[in-house]
């Protein structure tokens, strides 16, 4: 098994437009949260962590026409990827390159801007609205036209799950170079959604503080260039000896000299399986993610020198995470801080932004502060106070391992361990599984015809134990066989269909609880998202429905299934257009072949709305069906 090495990284967020600027802000304790400047929302009372560039300025940086309709999500992502590639200086030619991005918002910022028209602009925005198209566009803007792209969408843990997927692909020899991370622009849609959940603080957020009342939203992107030690060889050595990069990064040469010694040592993706928008009191999902990430890294709790907490600043998250940290570390809790007081909560991008912050900390021997903390809350751990930083920094110079937590709605909890030293290096005997495909066309269509049929699944290692399909709303009658009236009342048609097909496939398979749940969806619960968006655009940014918003994240279906099945295992959602299901199947096979899961529930769930069908006709795209849900239970072939 090969080691996964960080060959380079790029970052853009509220505290800086590149790694040097971010490092400077972190060291100086300078927050990036402030009054709203770029987002066109009426909620000016809410402080946000914006990237300090207009869309036009970003387009200029990327050499693009300033009139072009391009989502801020794609713009920030392309900037971070370009930085990361420049930093890594690897030759991509002839290599199998995969771009994996975590996002939920995708092109929503442009869709909401043009939702009322003009029609041509709205069409252009809709073409790149979904996460998959947004990621494809971002990769193209970064010059990676030939790379395969994938989008992971597990709400606020998306980017860490992208890093986990990339690491797994490298270890299995499925790719030579992976560019993994996440990007998320602020949008009125999710600002209002979080506001409807009443978890936004009107002052600067104070993670773990007794007086905390919520989070501040932020935005940004960060990407890591990952490769495995097997291909590091010449290229990395040459890079380390060159003066080139040091000259480029004159503000802090040390930033670029040690990066090849940072490894992704361990990680885990687990599910809290508790509630759609709240964390359990004992932080079970977080506990399992941290415990299993340490186990994979081969480390004991006392080997961790710093924890970058998820620490959003909501009363619920910080108490739950504190409990989970106490359960893992007992009396040996290392220094902990949440850096969301610097960046705001950058939602789907946060896992990558905070991983880069951890790498900067490790390479530059400093601990990031927990801005805003003053008063101890008995329910919470004590984060790093400013006065302790200097002393701790001296001890920290010998640090080798850092744990970074990243949790999301629906209890999609993940953790990653990065380290300075490496695990023993075994040479890989596995054959590459990946074939490069051409560039996918932008299309909002679900392209159901391209889904693999049952026969495609009958490969050497895996078999299908159960399967169920629903493609008509008339088939939702048997829902009540599986759920109570109380449970059914919030379900849209897609959630109903996904629940029925999943339960039927599991019943047929004779599996009560699968080891892992993998969901594929191009648009998620489009009907509820569209209702929320329509309400917001037509009636203004007040009195919006939290029920509609909480179902708008793509991982809603997968996490609802986990809650129903009490499944704390691996849980991920792919949102890469018509390719989503393929990615989901590949992941399921990977889990089964590596012995990480015996049974995996895999589903493809998508729905259309009349509006979506109307636009597909207008744009000459194939018109997707109103409802499609397919669930299969995969297992190892015996």
């Amino acid at each position, binding site marked *: 098994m090969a080691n996964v090495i960080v060959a380079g990284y790029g970052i853009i967020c509220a505290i800086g437009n590149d790694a040097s600027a971010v490092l400077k802000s972190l060291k100086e304790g300078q927050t990036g949260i402030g009054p709203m400047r770029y987002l066109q929302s009426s909620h000016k009372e809410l402080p946000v962590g914006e990237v300090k560039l207009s869309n036009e300025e970003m387009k200029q940086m990327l050499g693009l026409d300033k009139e072009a309709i391009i989502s801020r999500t794609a713009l920030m992502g392309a900037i971070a990827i370009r930085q990361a590639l420049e930093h890594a200086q690897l030759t991509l030619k002839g290599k199998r390159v995969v771009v994996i991005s975590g996002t939920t918002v995708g092109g929503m910022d442009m869709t909401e801007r043009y939702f009322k028209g003009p029609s041509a602009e709205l069409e252009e925005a809709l073409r790149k609205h979904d996460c998959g198209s947004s990621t494809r566009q971002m990769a193209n803007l970064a010059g990676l036209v030939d790379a395969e792209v994938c989008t992971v969408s597990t709400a606020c843990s998306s980017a860490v799950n992208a890093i986990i997927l990339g690491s797994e692909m490298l270890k299995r020899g499925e790719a030579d170079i992976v560019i993994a991370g996440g990007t998320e622009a602020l949008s009125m849609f999710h600002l209002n959604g979080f506001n*409807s959940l*009443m978890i936004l603080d009107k002052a600067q957020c104070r993670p773990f503080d007794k007086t905390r009342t919520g989070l501040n939203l932020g935005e940004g992107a960060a990407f890591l260039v990952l490769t495995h030690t097997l291909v590091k060889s010449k290229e990395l050595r040459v890079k380390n000896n060159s003066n080139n990069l040091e000259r480029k990064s004159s503000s802090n040469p040390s930033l670029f000299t040690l990066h090849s010694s940072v490894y992704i040592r361990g990680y885990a993706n687990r599910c809290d399986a508790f509630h759609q928008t709240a964390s359990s009191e004992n932080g079970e999902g977080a506990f399992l993610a941290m415990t299993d990430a340490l186990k994979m890294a081969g480390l004991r709790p006392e080997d961790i020198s710093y924890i970058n907490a998820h620490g959003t600043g909501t009363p619920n998250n910080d108490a739950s995470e504190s409990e989970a940290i106490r359960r893992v570390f007992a009396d040996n809790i290392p220094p902990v801080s949440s850096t969301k007081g610097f960046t705001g909560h950058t939602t789907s991008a946060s896992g990558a932004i905070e991983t880069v912050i951890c790498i900067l900390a490790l390479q530059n021997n400093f601990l990031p502060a927990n801005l805003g903390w003053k008063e101890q809350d008995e329910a919470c751990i004590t984060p790093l106070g400013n006065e302790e930083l200097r002393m701790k920094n001296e001890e920290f110079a010998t640090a080798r391992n850092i744990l970074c937590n990243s949790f999301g709605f629906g209890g999609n909890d993940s953790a990653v361990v990065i380290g300075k030293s490496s695990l023993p290096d075994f040479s890989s005997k596995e054959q590459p599984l990946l074939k490069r495909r051409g560039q996918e066309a932008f299309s909002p269509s679900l392209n159901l015809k391209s889904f693999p049929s049952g026969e495609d699944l009958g490969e050497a290692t895996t078999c299908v134990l159960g399967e169920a399909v629903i493609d008509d709303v008339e088939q939702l009658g048997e829902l009540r066989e599986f759920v109570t009236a109380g449970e059914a*009342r919030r379900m849209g048609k897609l959630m109903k269909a996904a629940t029925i097909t999943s339960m039927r496939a599991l019943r047929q398979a004779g599996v009560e609880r699968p080891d892992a749940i993998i969901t594929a969806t191009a648009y998620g619960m489009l009907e509820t998202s569209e209702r929320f968006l329509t309400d917001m655009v037509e009636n203004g940014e007040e009195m919006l429905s939290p029920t509609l918003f909480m179902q708008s994240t793509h991982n809603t279906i997968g996490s609802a299934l986990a809650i129903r099945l009490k499944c704390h295992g691996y849980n991920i959602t792919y949102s890469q257009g018509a390719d989503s299901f393929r990615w989901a199947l590949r992941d399921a096979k990977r889990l089964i072949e590596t012995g990480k899961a015996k049974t995996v529930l895999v589903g493809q769930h998508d729905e259309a709305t009349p509006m979506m069908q109307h636009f597909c006709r207008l744009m000459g795209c194939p018109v997707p069906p109103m409802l499609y849900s397919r669930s299969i239970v995969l297992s190892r072939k015996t």
Partner: protein
Amino acid sequence: MEQLINDLKQQIKEVLNLEELSLEDFDADAPLFADEGIGLDSIDVLEIIVLLEKQYGIRLANPKEGKAIFKSVRTIAEYVQANRKK
């Protein structure tokens, strides 16, 4: 007061999509959030807060304030009676 209670029952039933709960069975004194009552949860609290603002012009900034108010339909009605702006 009885009219307001009936209006609220209808509005809550509609906004929370309580299809199978008939208005006759919807006891104005039944606990809304306990398991033995109507069985609502924290997201329903947020929806009822939106409802109160839309229908009666009442703004609740903190869901925690709502605990005593949201005990039952009757307690909500009493609060609305005292605080309504429309």
